[in-house]
């Protein structure tokens, strides 16, 4: 494995805290969206926002914290995106299937599993 090119050091004026604050804000908005919406697709949008917030945080740490293998954080983020895509496909298929049966995707009307 080749070492990262040391002559291309970027003098970025970014701070880790700023990126972390962005990730925290995005996560809180996604959480509010996922908890408050009645539409199942809206809830899914919230989950996507939360996953993106996690990825922003992960990549910020992978870029700013010294590690012996600096690429592992990026590889991990690739896996997060993969799982997010799989989750979106299954969840939207579920929403479509539920709509076919119940004519609604409002999650407060879908209480078949309630005891």
């Amino acid at each position, binding site marked *: 494995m080749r070492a990262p090119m040391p002559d291309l050091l970027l003098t970025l*004026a970014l701070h880790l805290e700023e990126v972390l604050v962005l990730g925290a804000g995005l996560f809180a908005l996604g959480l509010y969206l996922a908890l408050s919406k009645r539409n199942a697709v809206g809830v899914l949008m919230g989950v996507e926002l939360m996953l993106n917030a996690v990825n922003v945080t992960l990549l910020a740490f992978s870029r700013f914290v010294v590690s012996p293998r600096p690429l592992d954080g990026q590889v991990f*983020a690739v896996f997060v995106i993969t799982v997010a895509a799989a989750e979106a496909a299954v969840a939207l298929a579920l929403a479509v299937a539920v709509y076919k049966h119940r004519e609604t995707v409002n999650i407060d009307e879908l209480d078949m599993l309630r005891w």
Partner: protein
Amino acid sequence: MTQVFFYLISAVVIAGALGVVLVRNVVYAALLLIMSLMGVAGIYILLSVEFLALVQVLVYGGAVTVLVLFALMLTRTGELKEKLDGEQKPLAAVAAIALLGTFLAMIMQTAWPRDVNQLTVVPFTDIGDALFNRWAVPFEIASGVLLVALIGAVVIAMQEEGER
């Protein structure tokens, strides 16, 4: 200069996410979600993780938002009259604000490393090297997960005649 761009793109990201929360039409919410996620791709470029920025544009700008729009179309939820938020809305707001407060307090209290300057441009070949050598087995498992999810999505969404 970088910082100006960072604040601009952050404003786009947060404004898009706020728009998803506030807007009444679900289709507009999906379009604002695209805006927010593309802003995240811009943040990746500022962090000089170009590969992830490309993946973000392809996966979220292309695949996921098309999926979301198709699901909205098939479930016909564009009606503006019905209530968009459930009764749990105040609780959700409390939970989100409490979480945000905890995060911000933690970020402010921690002494983060300064001037590490590890921001090197990593060539794509190194990422491919890491993915296919060191992380080859997890990579294959991830592809298996994707395959299972795709087949599962088809099976769930498919419905035989007379099943209702």
